[in-house]
């Protein structure tokens, strides 16, 4: 059994944040049914620079473990199919601009009226209320270079999953569904824990700090003879071990670097001193010495290196799948391991409408009705 066995999720989502949210639920065993427009499917099926045999890599990356049902929501019959599906569902997730789902008859008020047990999750750029509620999606960030990965999308997907599961827990105890509303902007802000803290406490505007930490030093990328490695010596004990590992015990007596607070204040001088020594030898040398002293450290891997690293593979972070159109494809594994009811990546992203017949049958539509829907392009 998987942890979310028996949980049915209607996935009316597109692009990244919300599909990532429902994919996490699917990985843990929820029956996630993706609603797509007949024919073309959701826009991500046509997005991006990477594809295999005509199948979008980005779509495949975010929609594994799901089923696909097509329904034309511009027609009342299409909406009626989705509403019948919602009657059987536990969760509805959508990431259209506030107002769009309501116009289609798939808003929170409308769906909770037909299924009061429903947990309805809305993921948007700025949230369902407030002055920017109707704005289009966009990332905001305090950093001069954007994070290399789309942090606010991904975090928002995870915050959504967290809200949904908490709401299911409440529903199972009380019989009451509810609206869960989160946004990319809020997710990004919720991640600025240290930065907000720095601003509120010191009044200073947090600056970009490269690879360094706001509150600890040395904790950053350090130069070796052949490139950089990372080291995190963020307390006195580790700092001492670090100085031992690079054979610079003299730094322990340097009045500029006695405490972590002083090391943070004098970071530039500290790193200059350290690099005088570290540029003399290779990364491999330093990583070995630091590891033997128990100082957290590591290489700066490229993705080819990370994705073939023995630890990545041992933790099952790379999964092989066979997609009906694209053939053999790889997918990322599940980063949280459950001992009793583990998640699994069982199947690739669905073809557009791959499960329409199966789901219509589950909902009790007759074969004649299937035929009629198909003939008129409703599904």
């Amino acid at each position, binding site marked *: 059994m998987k942890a979310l066995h*028996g949980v049915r999720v209607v996935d009316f989502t597109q692009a990244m944040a919300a599909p990532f949210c429902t994919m996490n639920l699917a990985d843990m065993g929820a029956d996630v049914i993706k609603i797509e427009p007949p024919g073309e499917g959701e826009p991500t099926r046509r997005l*991006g620079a990477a594809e295999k045999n005509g199948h979008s890599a980005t779509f495949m990356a975010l929609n594994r473990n799901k089923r696909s049902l097509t329904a034309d929501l511009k027609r009342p019959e299409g909406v009626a199919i989705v509403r019948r599906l919602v009657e059987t569902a536990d969760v509805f997730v959508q990431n259209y601009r506030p107002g769009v789902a309501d116009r289609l008859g798939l808003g929170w008020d409308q769906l909770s009226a037909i299924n009061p047990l429903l947990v309805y999750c809305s993921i948007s750029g700025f949230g369902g209320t407030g002055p920017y509620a109707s704005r289009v999606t966009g990332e*905001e960030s305090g950093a001069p270079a954007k994070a290399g990965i789309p942090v606010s999308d991904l*975090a928002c997907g995870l915050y959504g999953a967290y809200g949904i599961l908490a709401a299911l827990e409440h529903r199972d*105890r009380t019989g009451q569904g509810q609206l869960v509303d989160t946004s990319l902007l809020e997710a990004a802000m919720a991640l600025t824990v240290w930065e907000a803290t720095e601003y509120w406490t010191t009044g200073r505007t947090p600056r970009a700090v490269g*690879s360094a930490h706001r509150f600890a030093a040395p904790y950053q*990328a350090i130069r070796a003879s052949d490139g950089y490695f990372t080291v995190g010596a963020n307390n006195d004990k580790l700092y001492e071990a670090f100085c031992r590992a690079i054979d610079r015990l003299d730094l322990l007596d340097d009045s500029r670097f006695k405490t972590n607070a002083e090391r943070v204040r004098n970071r530039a001088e500290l790193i200059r001193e350290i690099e005088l020594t570290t540029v003399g030898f290779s990364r491999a040398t330093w990583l070995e010495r630091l*590891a033997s002293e128990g100082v957290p450290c590591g290489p700066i891997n490229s993705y080819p290196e990370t994705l073939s690293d023995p630890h990545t593979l041992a933790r099952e972070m790379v999964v092989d799948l066979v997609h009906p159109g694209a053939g053999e494809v790889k997918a990322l594994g599940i980063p*949280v391991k459950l001992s009793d009811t583990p998640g699994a990546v069982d199947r690739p992203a669905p073809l557009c409408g791959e499960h329409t017949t199966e789901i219509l049958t589950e909902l009790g539509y007759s074969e004649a009705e299937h035929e009629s829907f198909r003939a008129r392009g409703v599904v």
Partner: protein
Amino acid sequence: MDHIRVIDQTQVMAGPTCAMLLADLGADVIKVEPPGGETTRRIEPEIAPGVSAAFLAVNRNKRGMTLDLKQQRGVDIFMRLVGTADVLIENYRPGVAKRLGVGYDTLASSNPRLVYCSISGFGQTGPYASRGGYDLIAQGMSGIMSVTGHEGGPPVKVGVPITDLGAALFGVFGILCALRARRITGRGQFVDTSLFEAGVALSVWEATEYWYTGETPQRLGTGHRMNAPYQAFRASDGHFTVGASNERLWPRFASLLGLDRLLDEPRFADVGARVRNRPALEREIESVTATKPRSYWLERCEALGIPAGPIYSVPEALTDAHAVARGMAKEVDHPEAGRVKTLGNPVKMSATPPTMRNAAPPLGHDNTAILTELGYGDTEIRELAREGVI
């Protein structure tokens, strides 16, 4: 989650944040610290004498108790507390909890319904399991640093500790899944996640790019690896961000700039072509955007429905009208520091919303209350304090 009791045996960021996410939803989170306090209490800056701002930031809504697990009586009290708990979260290096006598096997045999979550640098198994791991190390090893920053510049990590926070989110997700499974099976289980795996799991586009194109993902500054234009552009008075990569928005943005001629050029014909020719596209766009101020472009993008925004500093973000309307900057009371600010929870719920009830507890703040709940008498509690067990 106010029927759920959580033992929070964590330090620094990932574990405390994971537990705080449950505390925000009303769970009774009891932070158990050694009598000297966890290390984060000594991190600067201070918000009041002896009160660490960093500690406050990730421990709100919790109760606090001290316990010396190196003394047998401390372990006895801890086991009694475990008997009343639904969830335990720890973020020691693998092996440390077991050495302290509070490993998963021991606790599960005394409370089979317990959901036990470990958050570590690299997870409980695999060749790097015993290594120490911080966000920086995980960002470096998961590949995230290899794609952050500008081409040719020094290494840059994501400005926020994304693997710490990602592990916290995957941890709370795993815990909530395990609680749901418990409703059916009646059993708790072991939930195991790590900073490294969170970093890898968040690399969806980057892994995809590598697997499908065979190319090593590079640093792109503010660009997107699957979309263009989708990045920061220069205006006459600074930068602003635009996401106009799809076939509906790109023509609209090109028209706004008076660059309709680009729509007919094969170099920019579709998203794939625009991604491949990003530098040329960027030059064309900035030749126009750099002639007018940010506000000019932002107003027009807004009117045309093109996603765009300013690049805020942290103070600007926290005082923005929308952030305030969405409750992203809250205040709570701290017994020593007075009113202190804390970030809001980004998830809004109509029936059981997250709440901000109290600031992080001073060290041992709830010792008496919790020990009393566990059935210890006043005399006994005084003795435990005298002997340094609490």
